[in-house]
């Protein structure tokens, strides 16, 4: 059913008149309830304090890069957890005098929960924390609020100092670890170098060059050896083909040669001279003598030969000179071969040595590279850690000197004079307001929920049947008479209710209640 606001107001007015007794009864009940609640409601006091977290400290830009200050906003964000944490709460309990009577753990827990509920921590902006505490004792409210702020600041600063010193310690420990490692690596490197002299940079290439050189030398020498051997074979062949003695040079030969020479000289002389010429005669004589001598020699040789004696030196045949030369060359060649073989053997030995050295160099190289790498990495980290440790030291000193992040109590807690929260007057006003609103709301709800018709037009709109008339209630004189009495009574009841609540409020103001 769609009603115009005007219709709703009119219908509500009519309805509330219609159900006037219910409305008045509810008014009285609601008021009584609210007044009772107002009387029973504990008086609340609250105090608040604001803490300013100094974010832009002068130290920070000065120490840029050298020290790190703890993030302020994080502190702010964690404020609630820190303040309502068990650590601070325990001290608050102690300070607020709650522990004067001994409490069981469970009671204590419940008490802490209550205090937590009454405490509000709000982060105003980025750097202001507001702590508010409510309670029924103004003195305790003041003290507790103050303590909250103090404890929070103490706790935060302690936590900060602890954090930075922990960081310093950690970094210091790490630095030591790396220093140890660095020392160890250095020692190992030294040992490796001293035990393995070849272990140095470039040894590998050197060994390779040397190996190549030796190998090529061996090959070359082998070649020479083969040549020399071939030459030897050729010489052998030649030597076997030559006679040891080629011709016999004897005195007879010498005589004959002399005779031949003289004969040719005689021939020449005869051309010019007569046989009687002295020179010719002399020569003829000479030839004759020589011929005689030759014969004598021949006889001596035959005789010696027959007797089996070795003819005299001038009587033996001469050695073959080619043969001699070949034999000389052969022996020289043999010497060459021997020396080449020796050289090959030497080169081979050197090669082997070089190979084994190469092997040693290789293994040493790998270890060396590993150690060097370790050493470099460790050294870098170590140096970095050293720098960091120094920064951490400065940070720690900052915190221990209470520089960097700082807390200031912007607005200290004050002793609350007037109670806050819901007052008796609120309850009173609420009673009057709700005393009217609740019955109206009930009637309004009934108007919408109840299918029974309360607005004449609804029939014609819903059923398309004309509404011939909407007849208001006909007040007979009798009804009017009793209505007047009733109205008087109801007004009296309402007035009494209001008067009662006003009286209570007055008593409350006068602090009688």
């Amino acid at each position: 059913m769609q009603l115009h606001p005007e219709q709703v107001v009119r219908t509500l007015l009519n309805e509330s008149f219609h159900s006037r007794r219910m409305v008045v009864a509810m008014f009285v009940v609601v008021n009584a309830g609210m007044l009772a609640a107002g009387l029973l409601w504990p008086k609340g006091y609250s105090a608040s304090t604001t803490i300013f977290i100094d974010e832009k400290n002068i130290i920070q830009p000065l120490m840029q890069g050298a020290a790190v200050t703890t993030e302020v906003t994080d502190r702010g964000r964690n404020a609630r957890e820190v303040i309502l944490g068990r650590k601070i709460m325990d001290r608050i309990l102690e300070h607020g005098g709650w522990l004067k009577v001994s409490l069981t753990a469970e009671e204590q827990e419940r008490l802490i929960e209550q205090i937590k509920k009454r405490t509000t921590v709000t982060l105003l902006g980025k750097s202001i924390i507001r702590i508010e505490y409510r309670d029924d004792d103004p003195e305790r409210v003041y003290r507790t609020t103050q303590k909250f702020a103090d404890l929070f600041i103490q706790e935060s600063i302690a936590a900060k100092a602890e954090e930075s010193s922990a960081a310093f310690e950690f970094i210091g420990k790490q630095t030591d670890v790396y220093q140890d490692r660095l020392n160890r690596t250095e020692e190992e490197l030294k040992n490796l170098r001293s035990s393995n002299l070849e272990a140095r940079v470039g040894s590998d290439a050197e060994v390779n060059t040397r190996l190549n050189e030796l190998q090529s030398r061996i090959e070359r020498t082998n070649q020479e050896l083969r040549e020399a051997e071939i030459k030897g074979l050729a010489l052998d062949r030649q030597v076997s083909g030559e006679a040891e003695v080629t011709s016999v040079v004897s005195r007879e030969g010498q005589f004959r040669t002399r005779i031949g020479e003289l004969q040719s000289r005689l021939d020449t002389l005869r051309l010019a001279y007569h046989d009687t010429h002295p020179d010719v005669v002399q020569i003829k004589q000479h030839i004759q003598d020589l011929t005689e001598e030759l014969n004598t020699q021949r006889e001596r040789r035959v005789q010696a030969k027959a007797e089996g004696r070795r003819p005299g030196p001038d009587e033996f045949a001469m050695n073959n000179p080619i043969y001699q030369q070949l034999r000389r060359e052969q022996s020289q060649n043999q010497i060459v071969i021997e020396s080449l073989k020796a050289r090959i053997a030497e080169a081979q030995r050197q090669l082997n040595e070089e190979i084994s050295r190469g092997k040693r160099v290789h293994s040493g190289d790998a270890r060396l590279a590993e150690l060097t790498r370790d050493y470099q990495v460790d050294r870098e980290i170590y140096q970095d850690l050293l720098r960091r440790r120094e920064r951490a030291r400065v940070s720690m000193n900052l915190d221990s000197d209470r520089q960097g992040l700082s807390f200031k109590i912007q607005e200290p807690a004050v002793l609350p004079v007037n109670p806050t929260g819901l007052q008796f007057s609120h309850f009173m006003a609420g009673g009057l307001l709700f005393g009217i609103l609740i019955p109206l709301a009930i009637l309004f709800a009934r108007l919408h929920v109840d299918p029974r018709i309360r607005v004449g037009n609804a029939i014609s709109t819903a059923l398309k049947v004309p509404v011939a008339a909407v007849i208001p209630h006909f007040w007979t004189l009798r009804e009017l008479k009793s209505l007047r009495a009733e109205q008087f009574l109801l007004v009296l009841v309402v007035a009494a209710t209001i008067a009662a609540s006003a009286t209570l409020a007055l008593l409350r103001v006068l602090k009688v209640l």
Partner: protein
Amino acid sequence: MSKIEKALGKAREEHGNLPALVSVPGTVMVRERTGHPETISRMAMSESRLLSAADLSWRGIIHPGRAEDPVVQVFRELRTKISVQCQERNSVILVTGLKKGSGGSFVARNLAAAFAFDMGRTALLIDCDLKNPSVHQLIDNASGPGLTDFLDDPNIDIGAIIQPVGIARYRAIAAGGLREIPGEYFNSQNMRRLLDSIRQRYMERFIILDGPPMQDIADIQVLSGLSDFVIVVARYGRATNAQIESCLNVINPGKLLGVVFNDEPRIPGFG
């Protein structure tokens, strides 16, 4: 000049503008058929005593003197509406409550009063709610014969059961002795004849039947068949749309004048 005309003239002098009787259609015919039609002037002569405004209020009837009373205004408007619908002829109007306590009798009683306010009209209220009769409270001679007596014994003179109420131009017929099964009475020829003869006897008369609640479907069907128009009364905060809809199905839509929404709460002296 006949006696009637003399009386009319006298009445005009007393009350000012009275509509001319001749202007009512069918009047002459009725006079010819019955021979002795009851006229306003004759009724005026037979008014025994008129009730004061306070008496009317005690009886739950509106008074023309309290014109500022919204109830009076509403009934006047309703009367005008009905007159337009009836085209100024005297008609039989059945007023029935949606259920018991809907205020059907109240509406019937006051509607009749509203018609009686009009000096050119008279009203007759017939109590047809035989189970819960209420009209006898308006009548001085409550023990006199009523509707059921007449239906039982047609020899009774109609004039004997029509009683004055104490309001000018307003007559009523009480229910009479209680009967168990009212349907039979309404169905009888006598009921029809009664209505016909009343119609003929009183020319400018509106006959209002104070019917039983609509839960008595049988009675309602019979009575609505006998009447020209039907008014259904629904009470504020009692009836739902569904109830109204199911009850209206019983009535011939052509006869339905509309629903009267009764007893809307009103703060007295507050409009």
